[in-house]
């Protein structure tokens, strides 16, 4: 459990690339443990954005002038970078979206058009609202049925129940790779394999996974995969939807507008090829380009070492928290990433969160956009700490001290 001086140096090197980590909050050094909500950004990403607006800014895909061509090239190179990193079969399977929520809504709307009344969609009880509400909206439009896989008390998905729900009416299984409120890692390979047996397609919500797990889309063999740029060291307002081209090709367009068309007339409009068919209007050009830079940054890391580091942080914090008798951790499976959700006796999470903040520690409190999990555990919310590659054991020590102080004041 002891940090070697080597890995300590590696973490310090990473920290030095994140300008925000030197901020003071309420007079204390910022301890940022809200990484599951959004990650901080390394200088390379920030500088890319600045540099782009200062030197290269132009609209893309339609200009003959040099700025526009360079911007287009940069945007498409970012797509290529992301496609290679995730090992998609082709760049045209990588669609830029606004974020995870936008991606899931796109699929619900477009893939949803191919569904018939009585078709079934399976989600789990641990989904983020963004992977619940779009299906509910679709249900009310198209009379499809949503089936919910329950979870065990440990927070793990009930695989037996899942298999019982699967049948030939199941057209889509939409499941999170990693739970944002509990940190549980789902056995998605198994879920994908079993779903394919009955002919169901699988959408993986990767909002919490790309930053923690190495993703190989072709090996995973999921049909759709979505995530948000802002959680993987990239900018806000951009995300990715991966879809197998066979599927994307038969799906109707989602939004209409510039770029997604081949020819427009009032009599007949035809649509552009992938990925453009699903990218209507001027995209978040700088967002896409800087997301490419975020992947360059990830690629520059020793990813496995980062994973080891994050796991060490998790185990270290779990041990510290478990030593406080009134603390109850939700999501007790061993198969977790760097998220811990807990409550302290019957103290309201909001009270703890407020006092931690006054001591410089940023955590999240509440339902974390997963109200059904809170209902399941019959709690109003939890305190959630979530770690990133730049966090340290020292920060955990400071957090635990601040937590103890808060508990003392509140008891």
């Amino acid at each position, binding site marked *: 459990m002891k940090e070697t001086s080597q890995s300590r140096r590696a973490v310090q090197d990473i920290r030095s690339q994140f300008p925000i980590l030197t901020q003071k909050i309420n007079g204390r050094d910022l301890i940022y443990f809200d990484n599951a909500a959004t990650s901080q950004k390394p200088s390379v990403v920030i500088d890319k954005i600045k540099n782009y607006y200062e030197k290269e800014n132009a609209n893309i895909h339609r200009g003959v002038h040099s700025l526009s061509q360079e911007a287009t090239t940069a945007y498409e190179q970012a797509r290529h970078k992301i496609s290679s990193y995730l090992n998609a079969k082709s760049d045209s399977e990588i669609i830029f979206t606004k974020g995870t929520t936008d991606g899931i809504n796109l699929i619900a709307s477009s893939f949803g058009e191919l569904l018939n009344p009585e078709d079934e969609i399976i989600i789990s009880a641990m989904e983020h609202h963004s992977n619940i509400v779009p299906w509910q909206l679709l249900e009310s439009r198209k009379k499809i049925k949503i089936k919910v896989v329950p979870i065990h008390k440990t927070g793990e998905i009930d695989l037996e129940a899942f298999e019982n729900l699967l049948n030939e009416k199941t057209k889509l299984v939409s499941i999170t790779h990693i739970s944002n409120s509990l940190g549980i890692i789902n056995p998605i390979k198994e879920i994908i394999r079993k779903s394919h047996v009955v002919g169901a397609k699988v959408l993986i919500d990767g909002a919490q996974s790309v930053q923690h797990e190495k993703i190989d889309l072709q090996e995973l063999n999921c049909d759709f995969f979505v995530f948000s740029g802002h959680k993987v060291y990239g900018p806000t307002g951009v995300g990715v939807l991966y879809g197998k081209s066979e599927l994307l090709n038969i799906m109707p367009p989602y939004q209409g507008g510039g770029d997604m068309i081949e020819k427009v007339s009032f009599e007949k409009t035809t649509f552009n090829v992938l990925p453009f068919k699903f990218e209507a209007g001027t995209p978040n050009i700088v967002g896409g380009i800087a997301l490419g830079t975020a992947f360059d940054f990830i690629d520059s890391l020793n990813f496995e070492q980062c994973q080891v580091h994050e796991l060490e942080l998790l185990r270290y914090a779990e041990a510290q928290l478990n030593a406080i008798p009134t603390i109850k951790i939700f999501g007790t499976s061993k198969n977790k990433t760097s998220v811990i959700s807990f409550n302290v006796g019957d103290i309201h999470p909001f009270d703890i969160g407020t006092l931690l903040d*006054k001591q410089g520690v940023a955590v999240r409190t509440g339902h974390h956009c997963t109200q059904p999990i809170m209902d399941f555990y019959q709690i109003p919310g939890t305190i959630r700490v979530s770690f990133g590659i730049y966090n340290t054991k020292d920060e955990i020590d400071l957090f635990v001290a601040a937590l103890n102080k808060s508990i003392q004041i*509140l008891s």
Partner: protein
Amino acid sequence: MNYTEKQNAIIEDFSLFDDWMEKYELIIDLGKEIEMIPNQDKRDEQLIEGCQSRVWLKSNYKDGKMFYFADSDAIITKGIISLLIKVMNGEEPKTIAKEDLFFIKEIGLQEHLSPTRANGLVEMVKRMKLDAIKNY
């Protein structure tokens, strides 16, 4: 003490502390002191649902003055409520509707009342004023 004086008194109380934790200890103590609406008396229509914590509010108008009863499931919210009630209770509707509520900001708690905060407090203050206006 009038409306302004009551607020100034609170500001003075808080000015004794310059450490945030001490200010909050005071708020928490205030929150613990008062049992504001007994649980069995809470009604659904009194509930103001915040994203983080919930608030109950009951207003009474008696002899030309307003009296409030409130509660919250979070103790810090409760503490802030008890400050609000301290200031507002026994005042005329007109005062509550028209006069400035400045102490919250002065003691550095404005974040709890920013319209973007989902703890129900903003909504609560709004309702306190609306209920006053009804009797004015």
